[in-house]
């Protein structure tokens, strides 16, 4: 065999260098994105990263991420990152570009972000011709929050808030942002592309490259709208979603270049040099010595009932319901209460937790950063919140083997295999109520009648109501038994 024919291959397409090698900012699964299978964000991210690689601008790029599923774009892009308040990404991009005119500034926004709450910001940024690039990911629905209708939702398209389909009479017509911005004088480049098939994807890649190139050339406002699939919320397979972009969405949102004034364009001069940093305190009338003293809040419990509860576990373990029953019971007992659910934007594989406060006094903040009771329904949750528990507080942990690194001398612990205990009662899903029973017994602040009333309001199915009542009673019993054991042991 001749060595002349030895097959030698070279890599021609691989993960762009503008991405981090591993996504260390993610809590878990650091080797892959948090996006659902078939989500358009990953594809658009890749196009953007490829363009950054091609122009060699990674080190002078500042990406503004929005609120929406792509809120965590900063997990992935190894560039300067700013995450903006909902809808404000193009306003933040304006400020970033003005203070760092040499930077490549890219605002990445979804349709719920840009076309609804951020419609004023994008309109005025475009009208000023701000020299930024905006990538507008349009999937015609609010996806992160579970599928509510957006300004971009198609006529007749069903969503959780338009269950009968969007009607023009009630919700108006789909907002054509690209066409709208193309009526303005200032924008430099506006194009709508899609991810509906190979041809569209290739065009989308070119358009995004074009927007980045405009930044490199120092030109004005570039806007690329991308029709992007959302298989999870559309309830279609990834391949069907792609088809839906091509066959349905594109009819409402035709793909086209709406504005292109880049050909003979000159770099846009910045409006005004920003003032030097050290002159700013003087300009705003703050002398250097005027910084406020340390104003850390000291926590002083003043009332007889002052529960700061954090409940944490995997999505689906009943974390939020546990907190809700507790808060409802407090309400029934005439206490001041707050219940604040907190979960990631991931539609899948997420963890969830909630903050619950019960007090006789008005509640200053619904946030529980230093709980006096932590209910940890799994090990990752325990490890995450264990250190935050107040001294002399309680940790109720689902598992009999308490991880040694979480052991603290100054807190009380009730660690039992609650899932197995609930399973023995008839359904492993009642583990949350067994844990709540133990919590109620420990807190000793609520009458059982209030708990019953709360449960009746929240659990409609009589079978589950009965199961939950038994689970609560079992939880109370388990705590009392553990106390007796301690007494005997002592």
């Amino acid at each position, binding site marked *: *065999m*001749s060595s*002349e*024919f030895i*097959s*030698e*291959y*070279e*890599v*021609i*397409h*691989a*993960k*762009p260098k503008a*991405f981090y090698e591993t996504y260390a900012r993610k809590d878990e*699964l650091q*080797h*892959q*994105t948090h*996006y*659902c*299978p*078939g*989500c*358009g*964000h*990953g*594809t658009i*991210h*890749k*196009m953007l*990263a490829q363009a950054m690689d091609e122009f060699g601008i990674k080190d002078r790029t500042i990406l503004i991420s929005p609120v929406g599923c792509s809120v965590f774009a900063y997990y*992935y892009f190894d560039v300067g990152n700013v995450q903006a308040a909902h809808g404000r990404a193009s306003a933040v991009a304006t400020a970033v570009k003005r203070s760092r005119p040499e930077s490549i500034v890219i605002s990445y926004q979804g349709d719920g972000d840009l076309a609804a709450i951020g419609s004023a910001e994008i309109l005025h940024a475009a009208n000023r011709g701000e020299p930024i690039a905006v990538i507008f990911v349009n999937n015609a629905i609010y996806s992160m929050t579970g599928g509510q209708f957006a300004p971009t939702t198609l006529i007749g398209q069903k969503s959780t808030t338009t269950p009968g389909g969007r009607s023009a009479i009630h919700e108006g017509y789909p907002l054509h942002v690209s066409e709208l911005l193309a009526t303005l004088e200032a924008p430099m480049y506006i194009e709508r592309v899609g*991810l509906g*098939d*190979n*041809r569209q*994807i*290739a065009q989308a*890649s070119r358009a995004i490259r074009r927007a980045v190139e405009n930044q490199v050339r120092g030109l004005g406002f570039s806007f690329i709208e991308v029709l992007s699939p959302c*298989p999870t919320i559309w309830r279609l*397979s*990834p*391949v069907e979603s*792609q088809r839906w972009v091509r066959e349905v969405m594109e009819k409402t949102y035709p793909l086209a270049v709406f504005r292109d004034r880049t050909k003979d364009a000159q770099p846009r001069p910045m409006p005004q040099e920003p003032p030097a940093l050290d002159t700013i305190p003087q300009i705003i009338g703050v002398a250097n010595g005027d910084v406020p003293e340390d104003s850390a809040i000291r926590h002083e419990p003043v009332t007889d009932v002052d529960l700061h509860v954090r409940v944490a576990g995997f999505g689906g373990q009943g974390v939020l319901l546990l907190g809700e029953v507790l808060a409802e019971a407090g309400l029934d007992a005439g206490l001041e209460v707050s219940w604040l659910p907190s979960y990631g934007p991931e539609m899948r594989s997420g963890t969830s937790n909630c903050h619950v406060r019960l007090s006789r006094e008005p509640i200053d903040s619904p946030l529980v950063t230093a709980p006096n009771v932590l209910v940890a329904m799994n090990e990752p949750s325990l490890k995450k919140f264990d250190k935050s528990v107040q001294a002399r507080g309680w940790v109720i942990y689902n598992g009999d083997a308490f991880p040694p690194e979480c052991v603290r001398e100054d807190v009380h612990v009730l660690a039992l295999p609650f899932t197995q205990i609930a399973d023995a009662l008839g359904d492993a899903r009642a583990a949350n109520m067994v844990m709540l029973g133990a919590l109620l017994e420990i807190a000793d602040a609520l009458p059982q009648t209030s708990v019953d009333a709360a449960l009746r309001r929240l659990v409609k199915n009589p079978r589950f109501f009965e199961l939950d009542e038994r689970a609560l009673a079992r939880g109370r019993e388990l705590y009392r038994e553990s106390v007796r054991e301690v007494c005997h042991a002592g």
Partner: protein
Amino acid sequence: MNAEKRDRGLLRVDGNECKGCGLCVEACPPKVIAMSERLNHYGYRTATYVGAGCTGCGICFMVCPEPGAITVLRAMAQRSAAGSGVTMGTEGAMPCASN
């Protein structure tokens, strides 16, 4: 040995990063990507290269929503006596295969 037997392209799929959306299977013009029979560690069927026929066009890479799940390689110029440098043909551009 027949030089024609060597594929122009080669495909690598990271079985841990792939989430099994199947877009690459649909997009591949020569249809040389299939879904695995087995589930990976995370419970997904993953894309796998059937082992032959890749042209190195890179379309699977473009449609894949995961940044590093797919790596595409292309055969380097052959150093055969008769060879006259690289002949890229149409696979150098993004063809417009419909799906």
